[in-house]
């Protein structure tokens, strides 16, 4: 098998815009589930609502496309009812951090054996570009027409504080590192959370002076720093710019977990 065999080909082409980063995340996810040797028959993809949440519909496994923000709660039921199933949640920043924030925190606290992959495009893409909890301060959206005045959520710090066993952040540019991180997430007993910053040229880039798809990818590339380097710089007394994107494994630990296959 290869990652390609996991695609539900009769549903292609997908609905995502040209230049969207979500396809890259699906590609890395399927490469990882294939590499780890999971079988399609006992793997379930669960999602909520939004651009990201259409991903499970393109995967040839049992898949549950649920209500806005509730993917993790549905996935909790699937996993606890049948721990022999491998359950992956695909979500977005609005789905996970706004309407679904409470389910996210409690799933991390329970450390339930799910892999949660968040495609963070910092915007509500499907509904036409409204501000989300991860829209950076000052950035434009249809509901922040003068620039967002709210601080953005750091989802990895949230997952870490709430108790998840594995937390990592990458961008859609870092495909090899992202695939490895998803692999590590799938291997984790307990909740694994992988945040992926992805470009949204249609609804985020267009309003925020990224003239092309690659402009936004360049931005993510040039503004990101590995966690180890960031830690070292801080230890040496350096202050990092506020818009620094910290990448890499944020947490890897073995706290007691729920719903692990016996």
């Amino acid at each position: 098998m290869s990652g390609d065999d996991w695609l539900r080909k009769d549903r292609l082409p997908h609905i995502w815009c040209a230049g969207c980063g979500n396809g890259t995340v699906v590609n890395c996810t399927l490469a990882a589930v294939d590499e780890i040797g999971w079988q399609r028959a006992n793997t379930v993809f669960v999602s909520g609502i939004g651009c990201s949440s259409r991903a499970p519909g393109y995967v040839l496994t049992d898949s549950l496309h649920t209500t806005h923000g509730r993917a993790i709660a549905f996935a909790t039921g699937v996993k606890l009812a049948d721990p022999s199933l491998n359950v992956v949640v695909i979500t977005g920043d609005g789905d996970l951090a706004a309407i679904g924030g409470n389910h996210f925190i409690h799933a991390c606290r329970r450390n339930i054996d799910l892999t949660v992959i968040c495609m963070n495009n910092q915007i509500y893409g499907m509904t036409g570009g409204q501000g989300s909890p991860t829209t950076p301060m000052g950035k434009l959206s249809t509901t922040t027409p003068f620039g967002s005045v709210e601080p953005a959520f750091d989802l990895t710090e949230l997952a870490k504080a709430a108790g998840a066993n594995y937390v990592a952040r990458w961008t859609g540019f870092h495909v090899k590192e992202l695939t490895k991180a998803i692999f590590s997430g799938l291997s984790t007993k307990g909740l694994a959370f992988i945040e992926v910053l992805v470009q949204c040229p249609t609804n985020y880039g267009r309003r925020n002076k990224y003239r092309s798809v690659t402009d936004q990818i360049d931005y993510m590339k040039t503004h990101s720093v590995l966690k180890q380097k960031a830690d070292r710089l801080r230890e040496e007394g350096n202050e990092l710019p506020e818009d620094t994107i910290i990448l890499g494994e944020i947490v890897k630990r073995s706290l007691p977990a729920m719903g692990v296959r016996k």
Partner: protein
Amino acid sequence: MSRVEFWQGNTACAEGALAAGCRFFGGYPITPSTEIAEHMARSLPKAGGVFVQMEDEIGGIASVIGASWAGKRAMTATSGPGFSLMMENIGFALMTETPCVIVNIQRGGPSTGQPTMAGQGDMLQCRYGSHGDISPIALVPASVEEMYSLTVHAFNLADIYRVPVFIMADEIIGHMRERIEVPDKVQLSERKPVIDPTHPFRAGCDLIPGFPTFGKGYAVHVTGLTHDDRGYPCTTNPEMHEKLVTRLFNKVESVRDEISLFETINTDSKVVFISYGAPARAVEQMLHDHPEAQIGHLRLKTVWPFGERCLSQFPNAEVFLFPELNLGQISREIERHTRIPVISIPKIGGNLHLPQELWEITERYL
């Protein structure tokens, strides 16, 4: 064979669920339903099942739907405020044809209202509360025995028709204690097998598709979006939407007389009481106190879908008297099905109608 117990209604409900093979409970504590969650928390692990206390009722019903797709008979229990929170996901269960059982031990509303007092104010919410055209099933127990038997029946109906089934009890029935004969064995139905795995949502003439349980290799896509027979989203095709929603509606409405359960007393009477849930007990006491009056009684065990056939059991009826613990929610539904006057006897505040009170109203019509 059976054994005799002296149980609270909520205990009987949980025991009925366990007897029906329920092996997943996801919920959130709320008065006056909490004893059901507590009983399941104690009993499910011993029965090889799973109890999970979720972060809210939205998560509770979501986990129940997830567990149902993983092949378990699954339930939750709540009351008014929690029931309101569940509405969106109840619509998801209806759209995706997910069998599950939702128990509502009704209290006084609106809002936080009267947490410890009885009400029947959610009877229209269970029918119309989730958005879109829907048709769920709602059963109403009027005794501890029925808290057990109707819960078993609810799981069977949920699996047969692939719908959420409500147990719309109330605080009085949930908390009162009565003698109950518990059967050693109950009759259980199964979910229909999948006929065509490439079109898992294709239904035969009974309008009910087979159930493609997760983990069995069906690679089924389940979505709350309007979908075709393959389960694939198809949201802008008007014919597809009409066909799907009409089927979901008709698979329950077309068999409402089969689903509809009721009991009758004195069917040739001119004055006929209609009741469901706790007020039925007041009616029964009044009938017992005044046998000479030969008053009729139609007690509904199924309120939704409403099977109008039950009204024709009383050919001589000249008036229907209908006590409810709300301002006349189901009385209005009865009016849609008959030309005989329906006199609503509403009562809110938490107390049950007194038999004497009902008799005084009855005397006006004798």
